[in-house]
């Protein structure tokens, strides 16, 4: 049986040299590297533009709730729409088995329109995405070409520069954006939201998303585990100027819920079912969407691996600052021509933004005990929950260090609170306290020190003020 399959694959692999040409968009071949390689064994030619039916759905501040459909085939639709050439344009496109009218694209536009005046265009290509994966992976070439044709039309008719264009693509859509970038030189930015792995990872750069496709390419990896056997749909390969791996890039918090809890989601059965199928993969656009409204909640720290990030590499941010994952990644000044990797942790449900602190605690008390202790931060803008710093043997005089990702931007710190517990009855009534607590914010490296003189019984909060 296996032999038959190998033979069939071999046959499919040998069919090559075909080419289709479509007016406006040019020709598409399935020569190497488009097919017949180890990464792309099955050859497929992209469908006709008519069948894929790429649609551009425009949202602006004038029409934030209902889209206007525009097309370059009939430029009068652009003239009649709310499209303005003095604004930046951001395209958003979806991936495999998804469509442009899906809520997440529109929500992303709405959030952008809250913070900036842009032409936000959702690119729908459901005609070409609801089919076999190999077919969809080739249909994106037409989708990318269509958007490129649209940008060219803008250039010819209005003198609109490609340097005003940002293309955000999720999964297969990220590689569609790459196709646009190859056809229209000088695109300002491409954001790849967990670019699809099968048929793209390790392929030559003319096939996949790459640094050369735009002036600035940033990528968010949320499902980078291998497709076999982990069913990770996203690329692990770093393909942009800045590559972010939130939570390590492979397993997202909040995605390991039991089946019923996952499907019966707060945002409805449909969102839940999507998450049941591809929770990690879809987190990438959720983080991006949250980042639009939370400018400092997604600071990425430079580190070679997630393990070393967890143990403190890249913390606090170097003098040049850290990039922000998501919408504000282009504010970063340290962009170079080689891929740079950044790590951060996020929350397990929206709001996903987190602020990373290093906390150092020196304990005072009478004797050692096994238990845990927490620290809560109090600042000018609010308070955080209690975050566990250490669990194990707590000894007086010892210093403990931990990194915590807190859920609120508390501003300038003015006090911290310490609480310990060991969950058993203590007939000796031991008392512990924090002598000194040093808290350092990762974003700008500011340090605050807090001093305490008292000790407290378990489950009682000790307040430490600035010293």
């Amino acid at each position, binding site marked *: 049986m296996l032999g038959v399959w190998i033979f069939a694959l071999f046959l499919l692999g040998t069919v090559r040299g075909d080419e289709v040409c479509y007016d406006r968009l040019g020709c598409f071949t399935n020569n190497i590297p488009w097919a017949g390689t180890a990464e792309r064994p099955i050859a497929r030619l992209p469908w006709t533009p008519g069948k894929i039916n790429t649609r551009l759905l425009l949202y602006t501040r004038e029409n934030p709730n209902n889209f206007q459909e525009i097309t370059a085939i009939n430029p009068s639709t652009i003239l009649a729409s709310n499209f303005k050439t003095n604004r930046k344009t951001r395209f958003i496109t979806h991936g495999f088995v998804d469509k442009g009218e899906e809520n997440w694209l529109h929500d992303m536009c709405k959030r952008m329109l809250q913070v900036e005046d842009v032409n936000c265009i959702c690119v729908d290509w459901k005609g070409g995405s609801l089919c076999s994966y190999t077919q969809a992976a080739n249909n994106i070439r037409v989708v990318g070409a269509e958007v490129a044709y649209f940008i060219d039309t803008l250039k010819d008719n209005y003198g609109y520069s490609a340097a005003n264009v940002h293309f955000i693509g999720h999964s297969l859509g990220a590689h569609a954006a790459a196709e646009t970038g190859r056809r229209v030189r000088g695109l300002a930015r491409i954001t790849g939201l967990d670019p699809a792995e099968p048929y793209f990872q390790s392929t030559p750069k003319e096939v996949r998303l790459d640094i050369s496709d735009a002036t600035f390419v940033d990528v968010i990896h949320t499902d980078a585990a291998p497709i076999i056997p982990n069913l990770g749909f996203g690329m692990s390969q770093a393909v942009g100027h800045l590559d972010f791996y939130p939570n390590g890039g492979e397993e997202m918090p909040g995605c*390991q819920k039991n089946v019923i*809890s*996952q499907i019966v989601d707060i945002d409805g059965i449909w969102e839940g079912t999507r998450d049941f199928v591809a929770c990690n993969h879809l987190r990438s656009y959720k983080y991006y969407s949250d980042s639009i409204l939370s400018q400092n909640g997604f600071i990425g720290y430079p580190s070679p691996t997630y393990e070393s990030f967890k143990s403190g590499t890249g913390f606090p941010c170097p003098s040049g600052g850290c990039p922000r994952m998501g919408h504000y990644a282009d504010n970063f000044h340290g962009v170079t021509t080689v891929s740079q990797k950044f790590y951060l942790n996020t929350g397990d449900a929206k709001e996903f933004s987190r602020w990373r602190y290093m906390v150092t605690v020196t304990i005072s008390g009478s004797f050692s005990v096994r238990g845990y202790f927490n620290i809560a931060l109090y600042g000018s803008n609010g308070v955080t929950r209690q975050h566990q710093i250490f669990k194990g043997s707590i000894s007086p005089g010892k210093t403990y260090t931990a990194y915590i990702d807190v859920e609120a931007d508390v501003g300038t710190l003015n006090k911290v609170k310490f609480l310990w517990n060991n969950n058993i009855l203590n007939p000796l009534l031991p008392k512990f306290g924090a002598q000194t607590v040093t808290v350092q914010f990762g974003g700008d490296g500011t340090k605050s020190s807090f001093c305490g003189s008292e000790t407290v019984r378990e489950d009682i909060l*000790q307040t430490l003020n600035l010293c």
Partner: protein
Amino acid sequence: MRRPFFLLLPLLTFALTLAAPPDKGLIINLDNGELCLNSLQCKSGCCHRRSGLSLARCAPKAAETQECSPKSIIGVYYKCVCESGLTCEADKSIVGSITNSNFGICVDPNAHVL
């Protein structure tokens, strides 16, 4: 007629075993966001629902200055109970305790001493 059942059962058990790695549970030790019936099931210690009609899910406890409910025997809360070391300062009424709506604010009982 019986055939779909034979198919369904192993599928379901497979799905359930897949969904429950050893360190977490279906019934106890639930993570935030998982469906619950009582706070005892949640790691966080709070089984939270938004309204009388919505489903309850595990949620983190309330921090200082946040809204809360005092501990109740019902075990499901519209506002989560406070984190340890804090007390929920609320005006308690009989109607409120029946409908589980004695909402208050988490405060640190020690902070008043200072």
